[in-house]
């Protein structure tokens, strides 16, 4: 097996980026959505990687009116009449199926209350980098069903880079080769079947090619003429999920726990975490790493959106300037997004070309978020590849 990566390091948007002694990342917020219990945790265990995932405790708190609430306490914020509706929504989140309507409309139909809608947006924004109007209720209910079954997130010891390093070791020990600074410039086909690919001016023969650069870029590498116009159109129109992450150095814990803090009332920030409460080695001794995430709607002025995010931080933490220093503001959109395909826009690993498969964050089976979706998609692709006869 050969892996070709155009950058000088492996791991794409899921690895550490050391900066001023802090373990920032190339993308991720250092979290594994279902800790040890989901498809990624299971895969890491089955591969014998030894990656330790520290479960987040509490999984998430919600900051409302300056106070932090656990999920089960949220119902206390509603009037007696609305409490009944909230209880019915909770029951449906466990048992319901949802449909095509957006999750926002689904909630609004059952409880037209501003806080309920803000809570939905901040949860979707933090978890998926889209707001509730962009997500089908069917997908949302599948996601919550997985959270009920496979529980909440965790932080890998050593950060997301530890996961990447462990996977690199598994690949290399299994005889695989990882070629860095090796940009793939074309995929070769013959009679509707993959035969190899081009890199660094050389052609390499392969029976099977698996691509994680997104279905659109994969089609471009093959040449559009190899596909039907409908397929080309379908991959060209896949909407991505964009976002902005702000990494902050702190001289004391600002959250003090290992879970997420959802911020439904902030102007832009959907949530934050402080991973150093789980693994202090992600910052210099005695310091903390706080990371915020906000959804970015392409087309909006990115500088203004960042400014609103920075304002949120100062409003959420009145002593921000005394204890905190912004390390880096990173924006993700336009081909290097948070998710190459918005959650709920489903696509399988197969392509119209025999021997060519897609994996990665554009190929997530229903209900699986972020790298859990990537791992679940990889598992589905492996089953197809095992069954492929050439």
């Amino acid at each position, binding site marked *: 097996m050969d892996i070709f990566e155009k950058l000088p390091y492996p791991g794409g948007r899921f690895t550490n980026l*050391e*900066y001023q002694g802090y373990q920032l990342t190339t993308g991720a917020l250092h979290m594994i959505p279902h800790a040890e219990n989901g498809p990624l945790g299971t895969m890491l265990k089955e591969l014998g990687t030894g990656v330790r995932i520290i479960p987040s405790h509490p999984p998430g708190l919600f900051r409302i009116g300056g106070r932090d609430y656990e999920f089960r306490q949220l119902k206390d914020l509603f009037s007696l009449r609305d409490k009944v509706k909230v209880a019915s929504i909770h029951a449906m989140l466990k048992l319901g199926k949802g449909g095509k309507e957006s999750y926002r409309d689904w909630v609004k139909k059952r409880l037209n209350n501003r806080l309920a809608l803000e809570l939905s947006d901040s949860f979707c924004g933090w978890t998926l980098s889209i707001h509730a109007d962009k997500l089908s209720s069917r997908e949302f209910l599948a996601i919550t069903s997985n959270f009920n079954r496979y529980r909440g997130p965790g932080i890998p010891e050593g950060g997301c880079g530890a996961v990447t390093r462990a996977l690199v070791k598994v690949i290399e020990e299994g005889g695989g080769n990882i070629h860095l600074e090796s940009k793939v410039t074309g995929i070769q086909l013959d009679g509707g079947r993959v035969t190899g690919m081009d890199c660094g001016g050389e052609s390499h023969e392969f029976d099977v090619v698996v691509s994680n650069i997104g279905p659109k870029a994969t089609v471009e590498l093959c040449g559009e003429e190899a596909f039907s116009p409908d397929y080309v159109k379908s991959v060209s129109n896949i909407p991505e999920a964009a976002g902005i992450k702000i990494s902050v150095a702190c001289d004391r814990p600002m959250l003090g726990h290992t879970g997420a803090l959802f911020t439904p009332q902030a102007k832009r920030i959907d949530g934050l975490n402080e991973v150093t409460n789980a693994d202090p080695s992600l910052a210099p001794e005695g310091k903390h790493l706080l990371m915020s995430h906000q959804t970015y709607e392409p087309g909006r002025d*990115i*500088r203004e959106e*960042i400014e609103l995010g920075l304002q949120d931080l100062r409003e959420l933490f009145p002593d921000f300037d005394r204890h905190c220093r912004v390390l880096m503001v*990173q924006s993700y959109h336009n081909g*290097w997004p948070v998710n190459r395909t918005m959650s709920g826009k489903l696509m399988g690993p197969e392509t119209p070309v025999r021997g060519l498969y897609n994996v990665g964050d554009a190929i997530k089976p229903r209900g699986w978020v972020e790298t859990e979706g990537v791992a679940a998609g990889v598992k589905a692709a492996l089953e197809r590849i095992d069954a492929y006869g050439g």
Partner: protein
Amino acid sequence: MIPVLVKDYCIGCGHCVPFCPQEAITVLGRAEIDGETCIECGICIIYCPNEAIQEDGG
């Protein structure tokens, strides 16, 4: 290797920042290279996932 930022390609992901030995790059929505401190080592060119930093004339 004089680095030139192709503004339309830069998305502000910040990957280039930690790799610059001169701390010549700052990012806020988009990268900016300080020509005074840049030593033209070209490292940022290979670390950008979006090919937004290119060699002069590249």
